[in-house]
């Protein structure tokens, strides 16, 4: 074959593809201008089928990769809750048939699996997620497809979505009670230590605002990547800054390194205690005796004395693959499934819009292990009690402080005058 004809054929192929692209561009869908037709959620007709004797629900947790460390137990608790509900007759008389998906500690995978659960498996709702990143990956998908997502972990707040229910604490239910506790202890100098990602950064931004109001001086702020265990250099800075208390927003196994380095540097709970928001009953044992005497702020502790809690602990201990201890995120996951049950039964339907309408009435409650929680129909968060626990020698928590009443969720901190209104306005605006 001659030179020219060879080259021409390659050109033709390229040209054909270029044409395809142009045609694809020209022939397709809505543009930014005609927002009214295609801009909002294009709520494709839901494929959820509840005509049979079962209802399909999706569980989305990282069972592999780095976050499997934390998310595996949440997945197990969800299975337990589903089994319990099924044993009690199911939701609206329909047994739960769950589809477990692996988020694989990969946020695009969370997005992909959400779409799969909603469009291929046709689940009525999805439960799971842990990191804020995973939630932010899921959010646009559930909003686009008008699905439901129940998120069980305390987070940095400043978010709400008609398609997400948050059963973990927002900032005013965990961070702010912790700050109130510190103020009551007469803390004057506070050091902030966190993992380098969105929750600690945001939490600390809020802490700094509130500390200014409380008259607490922030004497240092340090971050280390999530996957790094070595905290010795940062602890040296804590030693130098001489704070009264350390506010710890470190997540994951990095906590172990932090606590060990802290202990090695001669810092003790007697002189400079730590208050943590990510160390719970599950994490504490991995830190051994070196964490004893420090504090944690949660809504739920295994040591809480409520009738539902003892039942919850018993069921969990008896459950296969159980870790033996219960923790706040586990309890929040447990709540999420029951809350969904209450919502559906109040709505009398699995339909997303009907469920959301039922939530709007603000009457949905659940007698949770942490106490009777109420769903806020407007922001989709639940009321929670604030608790501070102190870690004892058994790596369990002795409750040393409790909020006066259940704290109403306030993700945008609208009830707090120290939170600048212009930030709130921009955040709400940016969230659309």
């Amino acid at each position, binding site marked *: 074959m001659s030179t020219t004809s060879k080259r021409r054929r*390659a050109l033709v*192929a*390229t040209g054909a*593809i270029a044409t*395809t*692209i142009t045609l*694809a*561009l020209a*022939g*397709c*869908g*809505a*543009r*930014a*201008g005609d*927002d009214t037709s*295609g*801009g*909002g959620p*294009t709520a*494709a007709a839901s494929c959820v089928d509840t005509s049979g004797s079962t209802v399909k629900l999706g569980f989305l947790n990282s*069972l*592999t*990769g780095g976050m499997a460390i934390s998310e595996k137990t949440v997945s197990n608790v969800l299975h337990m809750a589903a089994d319990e509900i099924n044993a009690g007759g199911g939701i609206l008389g329909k047994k739960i048939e769950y589809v477990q*998906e*692996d988020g*694989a500690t990969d*946020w*695009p*995978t969370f*997005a*992909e*699996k959400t*779409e*799969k659960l909603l*469009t*291929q498996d046709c689940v009525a709702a999805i439960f799971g997620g842990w*990191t*804020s*990143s995973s939630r*932010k*990956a899921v959010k*646009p998908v559930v909003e686009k497809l008008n699905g439901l997502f129940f998120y069980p972990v305390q987070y940095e707040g*400043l978010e709400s979505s008609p398609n997400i229910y948050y059963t973990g604490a927002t900032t005013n239910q965990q961070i702010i009670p912790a700050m109130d506790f510190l103020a009551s202890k007469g803390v004057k100098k506070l050091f902030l230590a966190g993992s*380098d*990602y969105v929750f600690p*950064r*945001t939490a600390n*931004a809020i802490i700094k605002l509130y500390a200014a109001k409380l008259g607490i001086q922030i004497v240092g702020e340090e*971050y280390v*990547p*999530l996957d790094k265990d070595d905290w010795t250099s940062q602890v040296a800075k804590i030693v130098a800054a001489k704070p009264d208390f350390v506010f710890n927003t470190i997540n994951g196994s990095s906590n172990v390194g932090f606590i060990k380095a802290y202990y090695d540097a001669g810092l003790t709970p007697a002189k400079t205690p730590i208050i943590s928001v990510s160390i719970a009953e599950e994490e504490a044992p991995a830190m051994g005796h070196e964490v004893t005497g420090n504090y944690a702020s949660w809504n739920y502790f295994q040591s809480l004395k409520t009738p539902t809690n003892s039942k919850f602990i018993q069921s969990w201990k008896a459950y296969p693959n159980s870790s033996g201890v219960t923790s706040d995120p586990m309890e929040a996951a447990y709540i999420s499934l029951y809350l969904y049950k209450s919502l559906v039964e109040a709505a009398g339907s699995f339909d997303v819009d009907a469920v959301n309408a039922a939530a709007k009435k603000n009457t949905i409650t659940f007698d949770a292990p942490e106490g009777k929680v109420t769903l806020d129909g407007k922001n989709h968060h639940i009321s929670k009690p604030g608790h501070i626990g102190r870690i004892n020698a058994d790596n369990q928590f002795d409750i040393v402080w409790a909020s006066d009443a259940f704290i109403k969720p306030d993700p945008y901190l609208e009830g707090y005058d120290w939170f*600048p209104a*212009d*930030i709130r306005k*921009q*955040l709400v*605006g*940016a*969230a659309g």
Partner: protein
Amino acid sequence: MTKPKPWLSLSGIGVFAVLLLAVAPLVLTDHWLNNLGKYCCWAIAAVGIGLAWGRGGMLVMGQGVFFALGAYSMAMHLTLETAGDRVPGFMVLYDPLAPLPAFWEPFRSTAFTLLAIVLLPVVLAGVLGYALFKRGVKGAYFAILSQALAVALATLISSTIRETGGDTGLSDFKYFFGFVLNDPANKVMVYLIAAALLVMCLLAVWQLYRSRFGELLVATRDAEERVRFLGYDPANVKLVAFVFSALMASIGGAMFVPIVGIITPAEIGAAASILMIAGVAFGGRASLFGPALGAMAVGWGQSSLGSTWPESWTYILGLLFIVVILFLPNGLSSLPARFARTRRSAAQQPAPAIATAELEGVRS
């Protein structure tokens, strides 16, 4: 190694193009079409890895870096398009009054964004490759350095939350160059662009492989010093392949963003960079279709096998690495040739052992 029938490959690309561009949109559901689009993005990056590693012998374990350049360029543009005149939401909290970081500003422009997707990886790979290859950094050193670079970049992005969105990444894009992303028709369009780009990348490497440069690249891979004694500077040869592969990774990254709707540092770090290689090794590093098909197969495995048996999937992936590399160093695409060889050698006398030739070649 050399393609006796280049036109067979070209018609292969043609069939592939028809399957991707015409058949797939007709037969697949929206969900699977979108997934296929995602695999196409990985496949684009994989084609580049095949070029650099399979043909050039450079084990690029940090293609995440270039994937990130394209992805973040695109994501910044889409974020700004979505935010309009406002500062993107995630930036507000840390400093509500501060303006947009200066390096974001040019990404408002469509032209600049497209240019950045092409030029950033070319420039970075050019500088990096020049520095490393001219100094004779190769083999395992190169692999580890490139991986370290990917880890460093992922860490850097994770820690610059206000500037890059940090660990949470950039997501929630509403528009793609003026098109509403939620519109299913537009999703199909985005898919078609990614698929077409994949076909174009295949055409590009097809031409590269059959060109004199392709032969020179293989020669450089097998005996770098020997090439030097023919008067070429092997660094330049490798540099060209490396730059091409970086460019492809960047294009893959750029298309990943509108298709998947999120980009985070996790997509560029060590694990993600290694996963890209898994597909290439599986399919056949030095073949034309191997890398692309391998990447798509691994992507599909993650979506479907990973769903059915999440824990086993990790084991499968691990075993895939071991078994394929141990027994099939040239991937699945070398199977037909293997069968042919065994059949021929069964019929006639044993074929000359390639292994001995390879052994001799190692030191020369």
